[in-house]
C-alpha cells in the first residue's frame, strides 16, 4: 500500500478547509486559458469590441448632436462623459455573464465543475480559479478600452490608469454577487430574469445622462444601484474630477464583495457537493 501512496503524483491536500480547498486554483486557471486557446479565442477576443462599438456609436454619433455636458460645473465632451460609464458597464456585464450564465451552464450542462471535483480539487479552488479568470479577462478588456479612449482623446487625466484596478474591483464585486445568485438558481427560466435586473441598471445609472434630471426620490433609488457607484468611480478617474465621495463608492464595492464572498463560501457545498 505504501508503495502506491508514494508513487502517486498528487499533492497532499490540506485538511484545514474541511475538504473545501486544495490550494490548486492555478490548475483551474490553466484549464481556462487552454480552453480559450483551443476553442474559443475568437469569441473571447470579440468581447473587447462590444464596449468599443458602443463608444463609437454613442460617443461619435450621439456626441455630435449633444456636444458637451456639464459635470460638477465643468463642461466635458459627451464622449468623455459616457466612455467611463461604458467601461464600468462592460465590467459589470462581463462579470455577471461569467458568474451567472457561464457558471450555470458549466454546472448544469457541461458538468465541468463536477469533473473538476472528482479530482483532489476542492470547491474553493474551482471558485477562485473561475473568478480569477473572469477578472483577468476583464482587466485585459479594460486596458484595451482605455487605449481606444486615449486614441479618441477621451482620457482627461493621467489618473485614468487607476481605472484598471478599479474596473477589476467592480468586476469582482459583481462576480461574487452573481455567483451567489447562481447558487440559488435551478432552471433556465429563472436565469431569464437576470436581464430584467441588468437593463434598468444599465439605462439609469448615470450612464448616458446625469441623474440630476430625475426627481430626488428617483435619484436616491439610482444611488442604491451598484452600477451607479461603479460609473462614478471610473468617471472620476478618467476625467480627473475626483471628490472625497470616491471613498464612499469604493466602500460600497468593498461591502458588496465581502457579502458576495461570504454567501458564496457558504453556498459552495450546496452548489458543488450535494
Amino acid at each position, binding site marked *: *500500500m505504501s*508503495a*502506491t*501512496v508514494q*508513487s*502517486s*503524483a*498528487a*499533492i*497532499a*491536500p*490540506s*485538511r484545514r478547509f*474541511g*475538504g*473545501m*480547498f*486544495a490550494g*490548486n486554483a492555478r*490548475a*483551474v486557471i*490553466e*484549464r481556462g486559458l*487552454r*480552453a480559450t486557446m*483551443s*476553442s*474559443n479565442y475568437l469569441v473571447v477576443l470579440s468581447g473587447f469590441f462590444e464596449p468599443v462599438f458602443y463608444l463609437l456609436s454613442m460617443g461619435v454619433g450621439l456626441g455630435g448632436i449633444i456636444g458637451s455636458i456639464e459635470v460638477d460645473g465643468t463642461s466635458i465632451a459627451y464622449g468623455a462623459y459616457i466612455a467611463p460609464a461604458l467601461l464600468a458597464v462592460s465590467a459589470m456585464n462581463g462579470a455577471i455573464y461569467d458568474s451567472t450564465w457561464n457558471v450555470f451552464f458549466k454546472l448544469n450542462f*457541461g*458538468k*465541468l465543475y*463536477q*469533473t*473538476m*471535483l*472528482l*479530482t*483532489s*480539487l*476542492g470547491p474553493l479552488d474551482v471558485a477562485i480559479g473561475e473568478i480569477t479568470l473572469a477578472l483577468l479577462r476583464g482587466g485585459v478588456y479594460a486596458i484595451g478600452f482605455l487605449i481606444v479612449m486615449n486614441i479618441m482623446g477621451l482620457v482627461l487625466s493621467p489618473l485614468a490608469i487607476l481605472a484598471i484596478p478599479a474596473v477589476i474591483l467592480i468586476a469582482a464585486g459583481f462576480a461574487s454577487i452573481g455567483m451567489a445568485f447562481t447558487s440559488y438558481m435551478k432552471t433556465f427560466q429563472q436565469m431569464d430574469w437576470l436581464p430584467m435586473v441588468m437593463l434598468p441598471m444599465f439605462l439609469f445609472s448615470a450612464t448616458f445622462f446625469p441623474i440630476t434630471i430625475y426627481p430626488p426620490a428617483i435619484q436616491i433609488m439610482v444611488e442604491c444601484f451598484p452600477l451607479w457607484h461603479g460609473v462614478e468611480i471610473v468617471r472620476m478617474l478618467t476625467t480627473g474630477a475626483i471628490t472625497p465621495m470616491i471613498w464612499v463608492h469604493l466602500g460600497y464595492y468593498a461591502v458588496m464583495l465581502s457579502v458576495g464572498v461570504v454567501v458564496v463560501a457558504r453556498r459552495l*457545498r450546496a452548489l*458543488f*457537493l*450535494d
Partner: protein
Amino acid sequence: MSFSSRLRNVAMTIGFFAVEHPSLLDYVFVSEPVIRAKNIVKKYDEFVAVDGISFEVQRGESFGLLGPNGAGKSTTMKMIAAVSTRTSGSLEVLGMDPNTDGPAIRSQLGVVPQEDNLDQELRVRENLLTYGRFFGMSRAEVATRADELLEFAQLTDRANSKVEPLSGGMKRRLTIARSLMNDPQMLLLDEPTTGLDPQARHILWDRLFRLKERGTTLVLTTHYMDEAEQLSDRIVVVDKGAIMAEGSPAQLIRQYSSREVLEVRYGSDKNASVAKKIADIGERQEILPDRILIYSDNGERDLAEITKRGHHPTTSLVRRSSLEDVFLRLTGRSLVE
C-alpha cells in the same frame, strides 16, 4: 474473445504494467478494506436515496453494485467519491472520512461517471493534461502519463482530435484514461458500458480486465448482469436504497436460483392461465407478463413434461441461471425495465 487472444492480452498487460508496478503480488494478496461503509444514508429533503447500507471492499478486489435504475447505486458511488455529503452513518475510504477529507481521498481515486463529462472545449490529449494538473501533477509528469494512457485507451491517433466527434466507445475509453491520470489506488466506475454497442463493450471490458489483473481495486455499478459477472469478484444487489444480497456471482446464483431456467411463452393473454395448469413443474416459477420462467435442475426434462401435457409453447428456451434470476427472486421485479 478466444482463449489464445485472451492469453496474449494478459501477457501484454503484464509487460505493460510490470515496469511501473514491480510488486504486483502485493496488491493481489494483501487483504485490507479500502472502503468501510456502515449504515450509510443519503436523503434529499424527504426522498431517501440510500437507506442504511453497509459493506466492505478489500484492496485489489473487484466489487460490483448491481441494481435497477434508481436503486441508489450512483448516490452510493458519489458518497464514496467524496462528492456527495452523506446524511448519516459512517464511511471510511482509504482510512479517511469523505465528509471532511474530500480532496485527500479524491487524490487517490479514479472516477468514471455515468455520463461522459469530457471537456468539450479541449482536445483529446488536453483533456488528460488538464485533468492531471487538477491533481497538482507537474507538467512533465502529465505529458508522459497522458501519452501512456492514450496508448492504453487506443486513442493515440486521436490525440489532437476534438472530443465531440469521438464515438461513444472512444469517449468512454478517454474518460477511463482520464480517471487513471493520477495513478489511482481505486477506480470507481458508474455504469461503465451503458449505451455502448456490443463491440465497444467488449473492448472496454478488456481494458478494465487488464486493470483488474494489474491489481487496481475496481468498484462498479451496473444494471447488466453479464457485466457484473464479467468484472466482479463480489457483488451486492441493491434495490430501493437497501442491500438485498451479497456474494460472488456464482455464490449468488447457487444460493438464490436453480441450475437451469426454462422459459416458455404462450402469448401475453394466455401465459397466466397456462401457468396455473403447470404450476407443479420445477422447483419454483416466476410468471412475467410476457413469459413463464421455470427454475429447476433440468430444463429439457421439464419442457418435455409440459409438452406431454399438451401445452405447446409458441417459443421455449432452456438456459443457465443468471444474476437476472437472482434479482427477480429477491425483488420480484426484472432488472432492466
